[in-house]
């Protein structure tokens, strides 16, 4: 399989990742190689196999759904490179 430049650009847009033309060219080759290699999984029969997304076997670990104070809210907000007003980060216009 071969990924076109347009497909690479589409994926990059979905991922909110700006790419240069050189990167588009390079990733189109490298991603094609990697995904072609991954096709070897087709050899493994997986009919009626339940997929797993975790490995502990733990189920429904819950905690009280109640409000808790965060010890470092202000310090977290200070991390923002954008301007902060009234405990809110101010972002640029969407359009």
């Amino acid at each position: 399989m071969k990924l076109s430049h347009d497909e690479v650009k589409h994926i990059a847009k979905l991922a909110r990742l700006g790419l240069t033309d050189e990167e588009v060219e390079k990733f189109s080759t490298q991603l094609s190689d990697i995904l072609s290699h991954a096709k070897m999984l087709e050899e493994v029969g997986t009919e009626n196999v339940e997929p797993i997304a975790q490995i502990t076997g733990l189920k429904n670990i819950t905690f009280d759904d109640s409000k808790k104070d965060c010890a470092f809210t202000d310090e977290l907000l200070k991390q923002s490179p954008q301007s902060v007003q009234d405990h809110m980060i101010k972002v640029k216009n969407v359009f």
Partner: protein
Amino acid sequence: MIDLSLAETHKGLKEKKFSSTELTQAYLDRIEKTDDKLNAYVTVTKEIALEAAGKADKEGKFKNPLAGIPMNLKDIICTAGIKTTACSKILENYIPPYDADVWARLKNAGAVLLGKANTDQFAMGSSSETSYFGVTKNPWDPERVAGGSSGGPAASVAADQCVFAIGTDTGGSIRQPASLCSCVGLKVSYGRVPRYGVISYASSFDTIGPVTKTVEDAAMVLNVIAGRSDNDSTTPDEPVPDYTKSLKTGLKGVKVGVPKEYFEGVEKETADAINQGIETLKKLGAKVVDVSLPLTRYAIPTYYLLVKSEASTNMARYDGIKYGHTTDDAKELLEIYMKSRAEGFGDEVKRTIMIGTYALSAGYYDAFYLKAAKVRALMKQEYEEVFKKVDVLAAPTSPFTAFRIGEKMDDPLAMYAADTLTVPAGICGLPGLSVPAGFDKNGLPIGMQILASQYKEENLFHVGHAFEQATEWHKKKPEL
């Protein structure tokens, strides 16, 4: 004193042969003298270290085995007030406001932080070459890589720049560099050590563990860092035994499985060294049986499809808004995302995001992500079956010894193949230990990997310690 193991150092402190301040200063001098050659540290926390050492000396009892012990943390482990960069540009100036659980536990035990160690950017890599701060060089041959992603922790332990280090292992990132640098590297069972405060790579794979000079040292560190945490709901309520109790020397009654698939495509000198190591286990009384794990050949694609998918979602938090680098060249919101991420991420991180996004996108999800998640379920079963028959598996850690810097950088698939023998434990959440097991004709270290079933770290310590006591490999030191 800097060549001592953790157990020996603890004894020395307790018997007042040296103070923690003297010890810490000796390590700081060693770092200053050798790190130009290695680049194992990205931050040295001299004042913080000397202050902690002074505090340990003043208290003076050294009751906890880690009290007054100088060590380092891979730079993806959050340290309140100390820069934590993931060795990336996007977090180049990030100072976390809180401690990771693992660091809080170590600090509480009295450990002395020498600094933060180098890693592949966001732990994505097998050679430490993707670090924004440059590659970590192998102490045995500075033209070669130290391995990765925990290259800094492994090189610093091998070069006596610390007593022990803490790394992370998603698909081999502790065991492989430990093998390439000749130290002991422990990947714990998934969930054994809480991940809170450790910058995520792949959340259902990531584990945190020690790199040490001996197997005993690894058991001593795990005693302090293991156990469930309210901050991480994926830490099961499994009891934490005293792991040093499993350090026995004989192997009578122990069943060791040798998986033939772990020897396919392995360099001859590595395979020979491991076969010799298995002979040693036999001499110690272990019963050795051949076993087969046929899905091993599918481990690499299974691993990278799942890990890159999980990583692509984890990396979404770096948006140029909440924290980290932001572009100064954006007029609207979308541009902030696109440009901040383009400027802040390195090549392998971008590749990871692209593969993961593709594998999770509509139309390809079933063929890639879901298929790999099913193969993961089958692999887990395969390992569960094999561990009904044997106590541990013994195999090489890496298919080859340390490779040259630059050799695999333009070929991602060749780089991924470096993890062929370590990813299965990541996929299945199993614990694994790499112990020094020989050298090739170029004088490069070879590691033997021991694997056990989930939460059976004790078996690793038992077999690893017995092997170490019967061999001299771990005593050899690189000349710097």
